[in-house]
């Protein structure tokens, strides 16, 4: 039995976001992610592409937003391997990289790799879907 199942569920000890539409207006992001797509929102009024996804545009404050696909491959700008001090549920070692998907969209992604030295600047990494507790998904990446 996983630790997850052994304890009664506690939302405030759960590191993963609620992804269902009744809890999260960006729930479509997770639906797309299950399909292997990496998406975010674009404002139909002023064309601004935002990361993270939004429900209101931070530029023009319009709320007419659409989902667009981002490239599923990103370029590593910097990488690190964390071997101590990881939170519960994230056993070390963890490889993290700052990934650039477009000139304006970057995020810090987990790189799933056995070779802890392999994630280095300028390498590319592509999306994989990582399943986590309670039927949820988070983005992760593998080196190309």
């Amino acid at each position, binding site marked *: 039995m996983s630790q997850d199942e052994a304890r009664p569920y506690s939302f405030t000890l759960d*590191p993963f976001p609620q992804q269902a539409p009744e809890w999260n207006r960006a729930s479509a992001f997770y639906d797309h992610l299950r399909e292997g797509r990496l998406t975010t929102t674009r404002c139909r009024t002023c064309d601004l592409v935002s990361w993270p996804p939004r429900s209101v545009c931070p530029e023009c404050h319009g709320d007419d937003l659409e989902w667009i696909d981002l490239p599923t491959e990103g370029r590593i700008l910097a990488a690190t391997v964390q071997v101590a001090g990881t939170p519960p549920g994230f056993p070390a070692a963890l490889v993290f990289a*700052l990934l650039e998907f477009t000139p304006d969209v970057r995020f810090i992604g987990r790189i799933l790799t056995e070779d802890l030295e392999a994630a280095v600047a300028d390498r590319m990494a592509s999306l994989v879907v990582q399943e986590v507790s309670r039927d949820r998904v988070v983005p992760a990446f593998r080196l190309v």
Partner: protein
Amino acid sequence: METRKVAVVAAGTSQKWGIFPGTYRDLVAEAGKAVFDSCPALSGGDIEGFIASSVMPERNVFQSHVAPLAAETLGVRPTKLFQRVENMCGSGTVAIRNAYTAIACGLADVIMVVGAEKMHTPEWGETVLNMLVGVDREWEGAVGVTAPVQFALTAQMHMRRFGTTVEQLAAVSAKNHRHALGNPYAQFPKACTIDEVRASKPVAAPFTIFDCSSITDGAAAVVLVCEERAREFTDQPIYLLGTGQAASGFNYANVHADWSEWPTLRTAVGSAYRMAGVGPGDIDVAEVHDCFSISEVIVTEEMGWAEKGGGGAFAAEGRSTYGGDVVVNPRGGLLGCGHPLGATGVAQATEVFRQLRGEAGPRQVDGAAIGLTHNLSGVAEHHVVIYGREEAL
């Protein structure tokens, strides 16, 4: 607009930072007692305004509404201003800025700022998990990103762009642990070499455990008053000469593209220098936010003390210690003292207060007349205050 000048008249900290043997209330009491004991003219009844700086008591001690808890503990009944401040790691300096603003505009004459954080819980895993609340939980915390990862990536970018070395990072750590030897409340006073820093337990490349500030229980408090009333409390008031603040963004990956530069810090310290009428070369002593060794490297550049890209060499060449250009982190900084989030900025102010009064004992910077504190809440949110002795007004 004509504003009033504001002075710090009393300051103190809890006795030994680390794992505090007591409750959150006990921690507040210990720091408050240190302040009242240091200033016999001051009593709880003098204090008109009260600001508590505390980041995550909801998580770590299961308690909200900590401003009245702390005020009640110290026998303070605010009549002019009352609040709690939470801006993550920079909360303490934000609280001091709020107190300054209220006194400068005449809202109150005497305000106490108490920073307190009891971070250790009986469950270490829960304590570490709680640190996820300080990052973008949905988009960064959810994949396991915490501060050591964010700043390790920052270090990697600085090393790649400027050739900063792990030995230069270790020089910051060795210096601040050595400085902490002179500070009775520091959690990690230690004479260590660059080789010992490098040989300590790896955390997140390029950091070892010595490159990282720790999870710490600690508290500090200061009392600020208007110039007209400063002499009621002390013969040696220390004046707030200037302050600045700037911030951009929350989701770490998108605050700005190149984390080896901290443009919002240049904005914040530029405002503080202008307001104080001083420049980088006028600062005698500084407490800056070395949450990780790379932070002090970049801070010394953006402050104008080291050339851009030269922050590593600045530390390695001894320019940020006694006898150098400016003594950075004489109390040991966050690396040497530990980092009790909401208390850190208040403790930095306490150190500069003591240094400018000549009361810093074995860690005294000779002749220090102008001091600076810098607190950050991520690479793109910075809070700066410059203090001076009366003759600097």
